[in-house]
C-alpha cells in the first residue's frame, strides 16, 4: 500500500496507539452505560465494576502516553505522523475524564439511591446519557476512519445535550420549590446532569482532535492568546 511507511514498525507503532484509544473508548462507553443503569436501578456490584473499569482505563491512558513518548523518541514523527502521535495523548486524556464523570455519577447514585425519585429529571438524564453514548460511539468511528464529516456532526449533536441539561437544571429549580425536603438528592441529580453535559464537551474535544489529525487545523486556536492579554 502506497501509504505505508518504509519502516513497517512505524505503522505498527501508530496502529497500536490507535487500537489502544479505541479500546479505551469502548470501556469508557461501557462505564457511562453502567453508571446510567446504576442511577435508574441501584446495584452495588455495578458500582464496583465501574471502579474496576476506571483502573483499567487509567492504565490504558498511561499506555497511550508511554507509547506516544517512545514513538516520538524512536521514530521522530513529522506532519500527519506527528499529529497522529500527539492527538492520542489528548484524546486519551479526554476519555479518561469521561470515565471520571461516569465514576462520579455512580458514586452519587450510591448516595441518593434510597431517596425519593425525581422522575422528570431522571428522564432527562437518561436522554442525555443515550445521546452522549451514541456520540461517543460515533467519535470513535470518526477517529478510527479519519471521518471529519462525522466529527463535525458530533459537534452539532452536543447542542442537544446542552439544551437538555439546561432544561434539567430548570426542572430541578422548579421541583426544589415544591419539594424542598428532596434538596440533597436533587443537588446530586443536578451534578449528575452536569457530568453528562461535561461528557458531551469531552466528546466534542475528541471530535476536534480528529479534525486536527486529518486537516492539521486546530479548531480551538481561532483566538490568538496574545489578543486576550490583560496588560495589552
Amino acid at each position, binding site marked *: 500500500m502506497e501509504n505505508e*511507511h*518504509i*519502516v*513497517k514498525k512505524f505503522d505498527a507503532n501508530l496502529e497500536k496507539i490507535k487500537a489502544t484509544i479505541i479500546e479505551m473508548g469502548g470501556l469508557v462507553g461501557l462505564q457511562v452505560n453502567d453508571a446510567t443503569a446504576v442511577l435508574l436501578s441501584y446495584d452495588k456490584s455495578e458500582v464496583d465494576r465501574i471502579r474496576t473499569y476506571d483502573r483499567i482505563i487509567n492504565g490504558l491512558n498511561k499506555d497511550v502516553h508511554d507509547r506516544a*513518548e517512545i514513538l516520538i*523518541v*524512536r*521514530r*521522530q514523527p513529522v506532519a500527519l505522523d506527528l499529529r497522529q502521535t500527539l492527538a492520542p495523548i489528548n484524546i486519551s486524556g479526554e476519555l479518561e475524564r469521561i470515565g471520571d464523570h461516569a465514576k462520579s455519577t455512580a458514586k452519587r447514585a450510591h448516595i441518593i439511591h434510597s431517596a425519593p425519585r425525581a422522575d422528570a429529571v431522571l428522564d432527562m438524564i437518561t436522554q442525555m446519557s443515550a445521546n452522549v453514548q451514541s456520540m461517543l460511539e460515533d467519535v470513535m468511528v470518526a477517529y478510527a476512519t479519519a471521518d471529519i464529516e462525522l466529527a463535525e456532526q458530533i459537534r452539532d449533536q452536543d447542542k442537544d445535550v446542552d439544551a437538555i441539561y439546561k432544561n434539567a437544571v430548570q426542572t430541578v429549580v422548579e421541583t426544589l420549590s415544591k419539594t424542598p425536603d428532596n434538596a440533597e438528592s436533587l443537588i446530586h441529580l443536578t451534578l449528575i446532569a452536569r457530568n453528562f453535559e461535561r461528557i458531551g464537551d469531552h466528546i466534542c474535544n475528541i471530535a476536534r482532535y480528529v479534525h486536527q489529525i486529518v486537516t492539521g487545523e486546530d479548531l480551538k486556536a481561532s483566538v490568538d492568546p496574545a489578543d486576550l492579554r490583560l496588560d495589552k
Partner: protein
Amino acid sequence: MTDPIITARGVDIFYDTKQAIHNIDLDILPNKVTAFIGPSGCGKSTFLRAINRMNDLIPSCRISGDMKIAGQDIYAPAVDVVALRAQVGMVFQKPNPFPKSIFENVAYGLKIHKITTSKTEMQDRVEWSLRSAGLWDEVADRLDDPGNSLSGGQQQRLCIARAIAIKPKVILMDEPCSALDPIATAVVEELIDNLRKDYTIVIVTHSMQQAARVSQRTAFFHLGSLVEYGETKSIFTNPTDERTQNYITGRIG
C-alpha cells in the same frame, strides 16, 4: 536473561602511546541491534573495529583485555583472522562494492571462504543473500552489471548482501547510512530490523535519531570510556548519566 554473544572485559586500546579506549566492559546480546553513539573521537569506531580485529591492520594499534565472541577469545594466538571475519562481517560508511559484477560481489566471500564450489548452490546463495538484503527484485535481471553501477543505497544493500552471504554470526556496521539519502536510509533501517532475526548487529552511528530508530540497546561512549549502556528506550527517555543526557539533548558534542 539471554547469554551475550560478545563479551568485552577490561578492554584498553592504544594508538602508539595515546589511549583510545579505557577499560571497557560490555556485553552484546544476540539478535539485537546495539548502537554505539558518542561524539567524534569518543572511541566508538575503534571499539567496533576491535570486534573483528580490523585494528590489526593499523601497526600502531594495540589492544589488551578480553574480547570474546560466543565464548571464544578472538585475540588468542591460534585464531585465524580470516575465519573470524567470516563470523563477524562488516559494512562500512561508504558503500564499497568490489569492481566486479553484482553477482560476483556477493559470490566473492563464498569463494574465498570455500563455502561452496557448486554452481547451483552458489547461485542459490547469491539469490538468497540479495533477497535478504531486499535488493533481489531490483537487480535480478542485471546480475552481470558492475556493482558500482547501482545507486548509493543499492550499493550499500549490495555490501550488506555480500556480508550476509557467508552467514556470519555478527554484522558490524560503521555509519552505514551516512552516505545515503533519507529514503535509502529508511530502506536500510528497515532491512537492519529484518536482519536482526538471524544476526546480531552492532552499529556505529553519528545520528542519535538513527540509534533511537534502529536499535534495541544503546551504548554511549565519551572520551574513550563507556559512559552508559542499556535499553535504547531508557537511554533516550531517561538516561542515568548526566553526560549521556547532555549529549543526546545536544548540550555537549
